[in-house]
């Protein structure tokens, strides 16, 4: 690593992962000491927030100056691996690493959390210290989810993230906050618990197969047990207990991920959560939490249970399409801007799932771009709507109209964000939707067409809403004298819009880093002998045969030109 000092060198991931959480505990300890020994009331909340901002800012700096710089784009497999014994007897090891798939989500997380802290500066006053504590805890938890390569470690962080967000919604949310927080926790909890049982079964299977406990996703020399990706899990029940089959394990994992994506029948919590959570919480949910579902599918569910994923793929595609159609329809009638954003998230989530379950390298690259792009776009939209609500006191679409006249800056930024949301060329959304839908077309023209139509419908819907809110006559008196965004607010939004435009205009640096890792994951799947992928490409030179196909896609001059041409 470049000049990070002796303590950080080789441990940059741990620093990034634990810096926010450790700051939270440190602040707690300082407060306790001050109260206990000096009888003071402890540090004021503003100081907490300032220290937290410093800590998250440092994390961001580490992520870019340490992680991103040290990351070698052309390397396949894991980098910056850190491995330590934690509970070897239970198969739980501290195993964090980064590859092309989680690199950009991690960068995004470290970017968003300080922004949210800044946004909260004037808005969160009540129980400020608790808020800062949970926010820092949440950042560590979500980073842990993205970085963990041990299945149970991943799950621990996953549950921690759910609990932290539960408190954020429940304490600082709107009128129905407690009911919504509970709904959120129950949805997330059921998914997490079933995944947990599946992890126990995996633990059992690995123990039976190898005789040593281990839950690492991939093999590591430090562990006696081979990685779970090398474990042969039976596909059919064939006399064994039913729950040992891939299908059930896959379903248990996929349920947890589908709830967070969210897919259509499991989405009930999301619109309510975005509508009731505080603006900061909504940005965290839409920006960070939703991406965990897609990431989990990509990293865990599909590679661990490829045959089950493949055999269930048609069903999942149908679910994704239903989800897209349903969300598009609901968005047409959504009166609350945050609810519209929730449905937008569902449409994009559906497209990510279509891309993933195309089992094309192209699509998987697209879904990684989609994870980051969706997070950036949704967070920007939610924050913009929050700023609008702060001025006008409502998010109801009917209450707006012609806002571009009093607030040109807001109109401009929101316009860019909406463009990115609908996948207009020049934005990261374009790269994502192009890759995703192209991969879907390769699988089935009908599904691809349906996906395109869904994306198109959502685009029309968003344009309509944008026109209704920003353009047209300024009819409502209350809207006439709304102050425009301040420079600070505009800068905040720009911090999210610049990456969106950067990825859209020049996607190569991003795609170059994602591709090798996607290829590596596909190689691992192929080594486990997935039937139809085998049929596509000859068994022996499978990786290379696929790699040429994939590199043709994102790296092709056509795509790059079309991106840069805007």
């Amino acid at each position, binding site marked *: 690593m470049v000049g990070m000092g002796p303590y950080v060198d080789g441990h940059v991931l741990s620093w990034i992962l634990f810096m926010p959480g450790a700051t939270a505990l440190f602040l707690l300890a300082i407060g*306790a000491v001050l109260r206990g020994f000096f009888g003071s009331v402890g540090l004021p909340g503003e100081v907490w927030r300032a220290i937290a901002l410093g800590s998250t800012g440092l994390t961001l700096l580490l992520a870019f100056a340490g992680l991103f710089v040290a990351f070698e784009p052309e390397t396949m497999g894991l980098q910056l691996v850190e491995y330590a014994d934690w*509970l070897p*007897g*239970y198969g739980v090891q501290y195993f964090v690493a980064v590859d092309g798939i989680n690199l950009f989500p991690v960068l995004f997380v470290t970017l968003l959390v300080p922004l949210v802290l800044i946004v909260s500066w004037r808005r969160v006053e009540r*129980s400020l210290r*608790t808020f800062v504590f949970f926010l820092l805890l949440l950042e560590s938890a979500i980073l842990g989810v993205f970085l963990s390569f041990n299945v149970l470690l991943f*799950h*621990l962080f996953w*549950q*921690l993230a759910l*609990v932290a967000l*539960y*408190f954020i919604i*429940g*304490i600082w949310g709107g009128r129905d*906050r*407690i009911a919504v*927080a*509970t709904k959120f*926790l*129950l949805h997330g*909890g*059921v998914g997490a*618990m*079933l995944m*947990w*049982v599946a992890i*126990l*079964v995996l*633990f*059992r299977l690995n123990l039976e197969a190898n005789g040593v406990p281990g839950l690492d996703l991939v093999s590591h020399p430090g562990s006696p047990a081979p990685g779970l990706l090398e474990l042969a899990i039976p596909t059919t029940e064939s006399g064994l*207990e039913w*729950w040992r089959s891939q299908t059930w394990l896959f379903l248990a994992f996929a349920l947890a991920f589908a709830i967070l994506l969210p897919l259509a029948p499991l989405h009930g919590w999301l619109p309510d959560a975005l509508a009731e959570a505080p603006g900061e919480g909504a940005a965290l949910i839409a920006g960070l939490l939703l991406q965990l579902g897609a990431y989990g599918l990509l990293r865990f569910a599909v590679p661990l249970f490829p045959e089950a994923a493949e055999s269930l793929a048609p069903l999942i595609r149908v679910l994704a399409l239903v989800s897209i159609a349903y969300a598009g329809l609901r968005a047409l009638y959504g009166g609350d801007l945050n609810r519209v954003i929730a449905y937008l998230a569902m449409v994009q989530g559906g497209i990510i799932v279509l891309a993933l379950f195309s089992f094309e390298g192209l699509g998987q690259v697209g879904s990684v771009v989609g994870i980051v792009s969706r997070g950036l776009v949704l967070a920007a939209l939610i924050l913009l709507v929050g700023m609008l609500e702060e001025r006008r006191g409502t998010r109801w679409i009917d209450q707006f109209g012609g806002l571009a006249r009093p607030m040109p800056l807001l109109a401009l930024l929101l316009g860019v964000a909406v463009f990115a949301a609908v996948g207009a060329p020049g934005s990261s959304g374009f790269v994502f939707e192009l890759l995703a839908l192209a991969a879907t077309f390769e699988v089935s023209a009908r599904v691809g067409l349906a996906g395109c139509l869904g994306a198109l419908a959502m685009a029309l819907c968003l344009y309509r809403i944008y026109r209704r809110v920003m353009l047209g006559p300024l009819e409502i008196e209350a809207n006439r004298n709304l102050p425009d965004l301040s420079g600070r607010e505009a800068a905040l939004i720009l911090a999210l819009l610049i990456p969106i435009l950067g990825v859209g205009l020049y996607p190569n640096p991003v795609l170059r880093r994602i591709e090798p890792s996607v290829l590596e994951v596909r190689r691992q799947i192929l080594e486990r002998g997935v039937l139809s992928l085998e049929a596509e490409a000859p068994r022996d030179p499978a990786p290379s045969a696929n790699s040429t196909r994939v590199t043709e896609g994102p790296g092709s001059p056509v795509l790059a030109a079309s991106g840069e041409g805007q």
Partner: protein
Amino acid sequence: MEATPMQWSDLIALGPAGATALGALGILLLSVLLAPRTPERSPGAPGARVSRSSKGSGEDELARMRVNLLLAGLATASLALAGGFAFSRLMSQPAPSPLSPMLALDGLAALSILVVGLAAVLVIWLSTSRLTAIRIPYGEYYALVLLGLAGSFAALQAENVIVLFLGLELMSVATTILTAAERGKKHGLEAALKAFLSNALSSALLLLGIILLFGATGHFDYPGLRDTLDPARGLDLAGLALIFAGLAMKLALVPFHQWLPDVQEGTSTSVAAFVSTCVVITVTLAWLRLVLHGLPDLHALLSPVFAGLGVASIVLANLMALVQRNVKRMLGWLVIAQAGTWILAFCVGDETAFGAMIFYLVAYALVMLGAFGVVMTLKGGGRELERLEHFAGIAESRKGLAAIMTLFMLAVAGVPGTVGFWARWHLVGALVAGGELVLAVIAVLGSVVSLYICMQVPVMMYMRETLEEEVTESATNELLVLLLCAGIVIGLGFWPDPLLPGWGMGLLDFFESSVGSSVR
């Protein structure tokens, strides 16, 4: 078998129960000797409270405190002695005595005694400073607790169904008296009556079952029962069913559960903590001993029984806990749900499962004691605040207490970072290993509901506005016990398998081997 002369070392088996019983007697004696002279000051007498508050002399208060601490220390010492006997047996692991004893102090018994004894010590130190406020006489309180524990230890060491019965009976009687010990509490007498009737009924069931078994096999002793019991005979089956019904009633498993929530609500919090830790754990471990030592391998017969009891308890108790507004009552229902969860280990019935169950019991005891301790220490206007609404806004005035309570509630639900997570991991893992996946999923879904139930308390504490109740400071001993519990809950949450220096193995392995060492 050739009768060998009795050795002194054979008497060690009498040690735990004997030490505790002697401690109880000593405390009774001392409390009489040290009792305040003037009649008006005798604790518990009508009007004592008024006269005390009107005089309120600090010297009086101090003297009372000294007596209280002395007696609590004495109780702890006798429990430590009992624990010492158990511990020495665990360290040495001698060959079983050739005599066929009434009591045996083998690995399982010693471990059980240590678990129950530790929980009891925590209960005692949690309640010392509360005794004055709730007008329970110290001497009687500690003596009754110790007597109950003597019975509990006897039941945990039983090698004979009659000893099992006598031990459980002693424990139940002591508990019943304790239930009614706080005078003037609203539902105190009702609770005591319920405890008494349910105890009587369960003892009757147990006794009838024992008699039927004796009639069928001619044996009271565990080894004899084990060799002669034949589940194909109707009489044996009936006796077994009655014994199990009696034990299930003492453990408050659905459908024999009705008494527990009422008792928890009606009695004072320290007694509720005693019932929901020491009593419940004793019944479970004594039951385990009966199954391991006293019964032949009846796995096929017993597995559905335990599965039915467990699943019914998990489902019904969780549903009932959903609608409770009284925290103690809610915790009572949660006790039933938890008992239903750990009883599922009997469905698998191997050493791993029972080791996991003991781990679960330890975790459960810490967490439940912590939760009851928080309820106990939250006082407002001179009384305990036990309704859910009373917790509103506590996070503003008592930050540390709110955080600790949140921790315990998360631990009950098994959220990672707490010992509850690993307890569930082991238990459900054992269920998965034993092939009982349906039971595993039910247990886990039950814990999602438990999560919702438990989160009601943090929701109140953090998300609602305070009711402006006057909140007093907590006593030091309560805070120390709470911090100890919280520390262990977090510590075991991150390092659930600490290496035990004396044995060179982890905690769970140690539990397993203790269970295994006593399986014949």
